């Protein structure tokens, strides 16, 4: 802020939520270090202080897939520990209030897709993230619920973590360990390549955990709201949205794919103050 003719004027306004990027970096590094430390621990040379937990112990989705075996036989699915249940509970609590902030702020796989997406944005400019025909895109957005049901079913009947063989998140942080199935590596590779064209393709079309948290968008306490009275209808919010949500024709975003990144708000891309906001109340 500087003073011009006695008035406080903001000369520079960041067009993005920079603190979200910092938080994403933090969690990416944290999980990467834990994964490396897990490998080091197996050879007895773990870094002290830092956790050497397995990736399954720090992934909240494990807490979801184990719910059936926990309820039916009182045990956790193989390789899943109670920490995954705790993380699932905390992520759900956050989601009930603020939507899938886990996806938009914490999940390192989402972060990596965003990083790769920067290349796509440079290459394709405005065409980036608009390659998939709308009709097909609308249908594909529901595929993640099918995947969620399949994962829950096969885990329940087998009592083992079948999804590990397809999980790009596990592949991302274990590719050096020799424990990753080729299918998981293939899915990770495909996700990264697609990220050059589409923002967060795994999150949009395939992530079963995103499907779980996405449902909270329908009833969450804090939502993205647009004040129609001050809106200039420039469409900036919709163009910026990584999940291609048409924010500019809504007063409240209840889309099941919103990840609470806040990139559409007046704090970031929207040029009019207090017009697109993250709030629990109403707007004029």
């Amino acid at each position, binding site marked *: 802020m500087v003073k011009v003719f006695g008035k406080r004027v903001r000369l520079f306004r960041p067009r993005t939520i920079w603190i979200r990027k910092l938080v994403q970096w933090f969690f990416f590094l944290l999980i990467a270090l834990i994964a490396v430390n897990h490998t080091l621990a197996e050879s007895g040379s773990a870094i002290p202080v830092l956790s050497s937990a397995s990736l399954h112990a720090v992934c909240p989705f494990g807490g979801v897939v184990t719910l059936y075996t926990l309820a039916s036989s009182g045990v956790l699915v193989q390789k899943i520990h109670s920490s995954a249940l*705790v993380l699932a509970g*905390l992520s759900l609590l956050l989601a009930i209030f603020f939507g899938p902030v886990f996806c938009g702020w914490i999940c390192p796989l989402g972060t990596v897709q965003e990083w790769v997406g920067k290349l796509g944005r440079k290459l394709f400019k405005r065409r980036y993230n608009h390659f998939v025909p709308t009709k097909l895109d609308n249908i594909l957005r529901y595929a993640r619920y099918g995947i969620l049901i399949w994962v829950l079913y096969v885990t329940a009947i087998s009592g083992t*973590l079948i999804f590990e*063989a397809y999980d790009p998140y596990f592949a991302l942080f274990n590719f050096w360990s020799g424990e990753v199935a080729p299918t998981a590596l293939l899915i990770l590779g495909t996700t990264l390549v697609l990220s050059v064209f589409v923002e967060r393709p795994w999150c949009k079309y395939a992530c079963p955990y995103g499907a779980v948290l996405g449902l909270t968008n329908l009833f969450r306490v804090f939502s993205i709201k647009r004040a129609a009275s001050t809106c200039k209808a420039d469409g900036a919010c919709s163009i910026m949205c990584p999940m291609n949500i048409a924010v500019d024709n809504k007063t409240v975003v209840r889309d099941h794919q919103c990840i609470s990144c*806040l990139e559409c708000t007046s704090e970031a891309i929207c040029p009019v103050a207090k017009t697109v906001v993250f709030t629990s109340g109403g707007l004029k």
Partner: protein
Amino acid sequence: MTLTSKPLAAILFIVMFGGISVSSALGWWQTESAKVPAAFTEGEFAGQANPADIRGSYTFGDIANSFDVAPDVLARAFQITSDDPASFAVKDLESLYLDSGYEIGTNSIRLFVAFYAGLPFDTTGQEIYLLKPAADILLADATLTPEQTAYLQAHTVEVAPADVEAAPAPSEESAPETESAPPAPDPTTSSTEEYLVKGKTTFGELLQWGVPQDVIEQMIEAPMPDLAMTVKDHATATGLDFETLKTQLQAEVDKIKK
């Protein structure tokens, strides 16, 4: 109430790390298994730890915590020379005997512990091998039924771990054999070695040996993986119990090759 990014970031950290701290204090934050095998749920041994649930991630020390088998007894039985046998991980056993022609791994430990501690263990249809020192310990210190003794004698092999010199040939006295018991298998017999499902066996080899693809797919509960992939790697990646899978596959191979 309206929120901006900075308070949201703060809430996120407070909830995640505060939640982890509280759950730790309450004892809910466990990132490792307790390494206690499931207990028998019925019968004479109800409530006692079940050796069939010993996992590869357990150490000899973990086993000693649940069963009346000291780590140094396990170390002697499986020819492990270590100053700290309690920290030896069961999953490391298999790699020591990888080139022996026999699968000496988690199942061998389960069998040994069950026989040593006098606990039930179902060996039906399973070919589980034990080393001669293990058999000697069992014959000397454990109370075995005639069936268990016969199984033991038919499944005792004399092989050395990768970093230990080969043990001397068995003497008549040290390798007792009864008329009725089948002879202990010879590790050098190529016909048994040729079709033995091991950690290094690939899905391609299984197909070559004549195991039908649909049978394999049924066992691994998944479509056929890359043919160059080893059964062990696949089991590790998908969370299946390798020992169980190996036993099922071996039974299929034996059916075809008999």
